[in-house]
């Protein structure tokens, strides 16, 4: 049960229930779609980029608590960051959720994103936590394809 509390911390439950920056962003000059066919998580991220900076960011879609909270927290963290900074944070986040359990979590570097350390206990849920991040990454790289964290929908 303690692992479950690690995964579904209050912060995550709160962001699931009251997602921040939720909804369409008018005048977005960059957007992307992400889809996880295994669980049906489906989201769009909208960005306003100015001089390589994320001036505004919003998302909408539906998904499990982990994916929704991850998208919500992500928008709060990325707002105001440069593309290069966003990439760096994404890498840090990715390392966190895919690292082994004995690896210490560096709270100073990760800030509030550290709440996702619980995902490490549930490898099946890594895809849920990282979908929004992969989607933003593709948006910033102008990847024309829909992001998917699944190869196989069986």
């Amino acid at each position, binding site marked *: 049960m303690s692992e*479950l509390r690690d*995964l*579904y911390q209050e912060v995550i439950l709160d962001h699931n229930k009251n997602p921040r920056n939720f909804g369409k962003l008018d005048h977005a000059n960059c957007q992307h779609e992400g889809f996880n066919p295994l*669980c049906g*998580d489906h989201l769009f991220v909208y960005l306003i980029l100015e001089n390589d900076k994320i001036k505004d960011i919003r998302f909408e879609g*539906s998904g499990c*608590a982990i994916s929704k909270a991850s998208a919500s927290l992500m928008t709060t963290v990325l707002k105001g960051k440069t593309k290069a900074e966003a990439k760096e944070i994404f890498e840090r986040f990715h390392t966190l959720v895919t690292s082994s359990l004995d690896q210490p979590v560096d709270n100073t570097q990760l800030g509030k994103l550290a709440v996702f350390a619980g995902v490490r206990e549930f490898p099946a849920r890594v895809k849920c936590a990282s979908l929004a991040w992969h989607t933003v990454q593709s948006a910033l790289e102008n990847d024309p394809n829909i992001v998917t964290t699944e190869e196989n*929908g069986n």
Partner: protein
Amino acid sequence: MSVASVLRTETAFDVQKIREDFPILKQQVHGKPLVYLDNAATSQKPQVVIDAITRYYTFENSNIHRGVHYLSSQATIAYENTRTILKNFLNAASEKEILFVRGTTEGINLVAQSYGRTFFKEGDEIIVSAMEHHSNIVPWQIVCEQTGAKLRVIPMNERGELQLDAYEKLFNPRTRFVSIVHVSNSLGTINPVEEMIATAHRYGVPVLLDGAQAVQHLTVDVRALDCDFYVFSGHKIYGPTGVGVLYGKQALLEKMPPYQGGGDMIRSVTFEKTTFNELPYKFEAGTPNIVGGISMTAGVRYLQSIGVDAIGQYEHELLEYGTDVLSSIKGLRLIGTAKSKTGILSFVLDNVHPHDVGTFLDVEGIAIRTGHHCTQPVMQFFKVPATSRASLAMYNTKEEIDILADAIRKVMKVFS
């Protein structure tokens, strides 16, 4: 004790005794007794099946059909004996009509490629239903691409029942084939296949039934149904993975070309010409899953020793109990409420995504399936991204359903 009560005791379904036959059910998961409710994905294996696998590799292992030595002839006898048991299980007319395949999916692909590719042409129409598993959609889409044929889809209603009036209207002179699921894996619906086959035959159209979720719950008699093809998998009927059965009417199988070429499916080979073996070997190229076939028989025998009808009746009681218990949970919606159903309890919860449900239940030791169950069109129809599905087998109990319901209430509380 009166005679009547003795009879009642003897005929009662002894689920505790059955549970003893499944060693996996004795274990704990996350410190809780395992509650296995993912039987539509795969069933657990009784000790007799596990023993059959061990016995084969310990005493009988040998390649079949071609060897002249002792072990090979023993293995061949055991494997061919399996065919006879399966012939009787389905009430097929002959062993020639029983083909071993890797599972339901391969069986459907075999018919799509061998029958479909040979007999379909541009503009022909193939009928499937709105509740098909991907394995009964995609092989037909592939053959449609190859031949220029088109798919037509039988609609269903909100309860998850096929609309038979609309079905009959789909027939026209271009209709060439009907391929439908006998029992839906995501809704539990038992389709009125006898009537649907009769309709198709009035138009001279052959019918394949996907029986992956049927043969372990209902007695299937392919001759009484008059279906042209019937497929199922060993692993969902208490046997091993990687083996299944395709039944086909002999006259149709005779007309169909081989699906795969290789050893055992030939009579003679020269570089100029190959002549093919007779049925069923024409469709069984290469060394088959011998241990799979032999141990699947052990599963079928086990099933028969308890009685498919008795199992179906017991599971139906569980289904009714589960339907009542789950329906009483506020914020829970059952998906698939057909009048005629097997033990599938597919549901969605207000404000909780199925994947979160799955993770919470797992920690309680409960194994269910969450996702689209390889039936994405069904999810689209009900406008849900996914469902949580508890699927029942003969070894499940009412107590397990209560444990499930308690765990669901707990999840909803966390997310409220």
